[in-house]
């Protein structure tokens, strides 16, 4: 498998265009802002609760700061990750470089995995940079490391699924914008499914709930590792990558 050269090439391309820098900067800015406002609110609440012991009992840093932060970050990811994946195949098709790439002695699967891992690595680095925020919290207050750790794991798994969807839609079109919008739309639909689950109720509701892409992230943020959620994200990722591979093969026949 010649995944490594493809991975390196994609990484190089990420950092020669401004897109990756802009996405990472904006992500850190917005996540930082969320963190700041949630933390500021928490500080205010804890000052008030210092005067009101009944309130203090319900106040806990993990629940009040980190959990809202994780859930906000997952929404930013829904908006930003499609921008990291849109280029991967669409641009190769637009510029025609795919014709050379797919005649190199590398299997389609290796090309796909190389590109996927490059996007995932960039995402992991981007997410890693936000560890600064829990770091600040831990400096000022007692922070349970367990839920923070599982929260990050949840975000990584969820991002892995987002990126897989993004790479699949990128393989469907020559237009990066179309790829980004399609990814965003697809992810949004899987998010919205969770809302309708509440109305549907019963068995249908449970199925919808299970399909919802953000729903599965909640337990991670609570510090609970449920194999059901892990498997959901892994399945989602594998299915999207499989579809991307099929789409590459189908392209070959069309020429």
């Amino acid at each position, binding site marked *: 498998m010649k995944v490594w050269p493809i991975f390196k090439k994609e990484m190089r391309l990420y950092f020669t265009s401004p897109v990756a820098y802009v996405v990472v900067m904006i992500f850190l800015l917005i996540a930082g802002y969320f963190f700041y406002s949630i933390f500021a609110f928490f500080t205010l609440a804890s000052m008030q609760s210092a005067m009101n012991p009944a309130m203090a009992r319900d106040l806990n840093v993990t629940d009040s700061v980190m959990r809202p932060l994780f859930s906000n970050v997952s929404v930013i990811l829904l908006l930003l990750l499609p921008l990291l994946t849109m280029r991967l195949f669409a641009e190769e098709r637009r510029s025609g470089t*795919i014709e050379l790439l797919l005649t190199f*002695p590398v299997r389609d699967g290796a090309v796909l995995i190389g590109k996927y891992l490059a996007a995932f690595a960039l995402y992991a680095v981007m997410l890693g940079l936000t560890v600064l925020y829990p770091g600040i919290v831990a400096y000022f207050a007692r922070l349970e490391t367990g839920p923070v750790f599982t929260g990050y794991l949840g975000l990584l798994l969820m991002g892995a699924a987002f990126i897989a969807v993004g790479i699949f839609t990128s393989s469907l079109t020559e237009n990066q914008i179309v790829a980004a919008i399609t990814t965003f739309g697809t992810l949004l639909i899987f998010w919205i499914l969770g809302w309708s689950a509440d109305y549907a109720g019963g068995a249908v509701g449970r199925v919808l709930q299970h399909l919802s892409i953000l729903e599965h992230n909640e337990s991670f943020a609570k510090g609970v590792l449920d194999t059901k959620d892990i498997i959901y994200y892994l399945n989602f990722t594998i299915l999207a990558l499989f579809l991307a591979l099929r789409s590459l093969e189908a392209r*070959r026949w069309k*020429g």
Partner: protein
Amino acid sequence: MIEVQGLTKQYGPVTAIRDVSFSVAPGEIVGFLGPNGAGKSTAMRILSCFMPATSGTARVAGYDVFTQSMQVRRRIGYLPESVPLYTDMRVAPYLDFVAEVKGVARGERRRRVADVMDRCMIADVQNRLIGQLSKGYRQRVGLAQALVSDPEVLILDEPTIGLDPRQITEIRSLIRALAGRHTVILSTHILPEVSMVCGGVVIINKGAIVAQGPIDTLVEQFFPTARVEVEIVGPPPAVREMIRAIPGVVSVHDEATTNGAGRYVVESARERDVRAEISRLAAQQQWSLLELKRVGTTLEEVFIRIVAGEEASAVAGGEVAP
């Protein structure tokens, strides 16, 4: 080195190539010649394993392009018609990437990349972004990426398209220098290019092969006669008749008459040189002989004759062009 048998490719309802068969011997440079839309790029894309054929087989270096695609891909260098390169990469890292993907060993890569940049005369731009290079340089980078793994077979789709005349000459001499060491198949719609660069030619028109072989053989096959152009001042009917009477002369055509001097094209059997007899005849008859020269047959004329012949037979057969 390249064997193609009954290759057909359909894009939906469009048949791009139909029952194409040809072969290329090791070390040979063969031109794939045809007008735009003839199906040249389609054939090259199949040979390079980019896309599968609808039917038929193609073998490169002994391996089937469909069932043994990886073996084929390791042994070819391909330059697509549009010269697609990563515009955001720099020349040397790009070539290093291609070399790595094509399995050039780590220790050898640096030397190989430097060597191919020298051969393609791009060493001076090795640190530039590919997107900022001129068309001529980009074409050479394209050629360099095809050569960097030192492949047995090179598949070059219109390697001189869009270049200025000086660049065309450079690329052609670069390609000529590949003969013997590599087997090359290059497509072109420029006729003189084939005679300048290639030993053999495969002529394709509307998706089907109409002629193939060494260029000299093709010329002889389609033009069995030798031609001489004469300019003589004399009474045209007499000139025509007396030249026609020279043994070996097949036909005499009037070309034009200017200031009383007539131009004639004399066709004779290939092995006979009738120039001496014509000049003797002119002296005898006291005609003024203004010009007498042999005209070579170009591939262009062969091509026109073949393609025109195709069209005539298609009309005669009541066939409708697709």
